[in-house]
């Protein structure tokens, strides 16, 4: 299986009014190797309301939901150019005029459904970005970290490194994301254990 599939978490929204169907699909996805977070919505209107600002990677919709609403579907694609839309049919129907990037039937075997969805990831523009789990800090981050553990404020760090405060904040966020440590005292222990700074400064 494509490695990016397992590493990058995919956000999938299931657009389906039947609880039985959406829960069933959830079960199929949950037991697959696709690393995903799943949300539901009942209607296209709900979808617009819930995901207007934050688009999922994939929308799996009962194709009936799009009946006579081609305009709205185009609108989704306009707002979220990278979104992938998968149609879910109650029976085998001819693909609906390019509304969907892929489709499957409720009666397809599980593996086939997973495969249909998995194939889509290869098309994704961001699927090829190698998201590294590498947690080693960049040189700049180490400079910012040194400032933090020495008790300097964001402003002071920004001035000494000749960067904006905003950039310092971004570095701080990345440092926390990489190390899993948030507090200044925790970061101090981290910095010492990685020999970024020496203990003599803190005796």
């Amino acid at each position: 299986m494509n490695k990016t599939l397992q590493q990058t978490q995919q956000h999938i929204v299931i657009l389906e009014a039947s609880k039985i169907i959406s829960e069933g699909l959830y079960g199929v996805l949950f037991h697959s190797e696709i690393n995903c977070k799943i949300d539901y919505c009942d209607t296209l209107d709900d979808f617009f309301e819930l995901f207007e600002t934050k688009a999922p990677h994939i929308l799996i919709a009962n194709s009936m939901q799009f009946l006579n609403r081609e305009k709205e579907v185009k609108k989704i694609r306009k707002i979220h150019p990278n979104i992938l839309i998968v149609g879910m049919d109650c029976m085998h129907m001819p693909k609906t005029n390019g509304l969907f990037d892929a489709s499957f039937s409720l009666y397809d075997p599980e593996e086939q459904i997973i495969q249909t969805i998995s194939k889509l990831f290869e098309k994704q523009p961001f699927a090829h970005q190698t998201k590294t789990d590498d947690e080693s800090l960049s040189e700049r981050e180490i400079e910012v970290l040194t400032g933090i553990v020495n008790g300097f404020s964001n402003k002071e760090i920004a001035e000494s490194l000749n960067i904006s405060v905003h950039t310092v904040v971004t570095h701080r966020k990345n440092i926390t994301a990489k190390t899993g440590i948030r507090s200044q005292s925790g970061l101090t222990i981290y910095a010492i254990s990685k020999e970024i700074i020496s203990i003599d400064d803190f005796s």
Partner: protein
Amino acid sequence: MYYHSKYRINSEMKMIHLLEENHLLLLMLQHFEIDFRVGDLTIAQLCREYDISENLFIGITNLYSGVRVANNTSFSKKDLLRVINFLKNSHTYYRSDKYPQIRNFVFQLKQNHPDKELKLLEQFFDEYFAEVLEHLNYEDTIAFPYFIALLENKENTAASTNYSSDEYSEHHTDIELKLKDLKNLLLKHLKISDDWMLRRQLLFALYELEYDLYIHSLIEETILIPAGIGIENE
């Protein structure tokens, strides 16, 4: 990491079966002051014996099993007083039981390993523990007495004090944060050789504490604060 029940809890279930599913419910029993010797009692029988409403008991059991309390659930004033008592008991568990135990493990670790980082880790923990104690004291002396007065219908409690549920929810600091730091230092960064037993005991204790703290804040956020705001608006 939190338990997810595979079924909806109802009052005819036997407590002992729920414990088989999630032994961390023992923490809940202790905070409710329910004896661990639950025998074959069902939730309904247990609630009757300890004078707790089933609604409340099931609500909190659900929280411990990863199911949130529905927004429209309403609790009686008696329930809410019971909730405050529950929260106070969990403070005792933090203050005199779990944190001291963790403190002891960290101290042992420092004794066993001369590395400088572990001395700092102990210092980190002590500072953190002091912050936690301060927060618990604040809740015990300011927040809880306010809610009790509010619930006991003391006229004008809301009007006569400057305090409010809203302020409480703001003051409601995140003491889980440094706990995560501690866990991550042990799991990701600090190199400590061997000492398996001690390190495992320490990590188990941290996970247990994190779990209970998480439920603790859920109880405050989803039960106590909404109820307080409701009464203030009456």
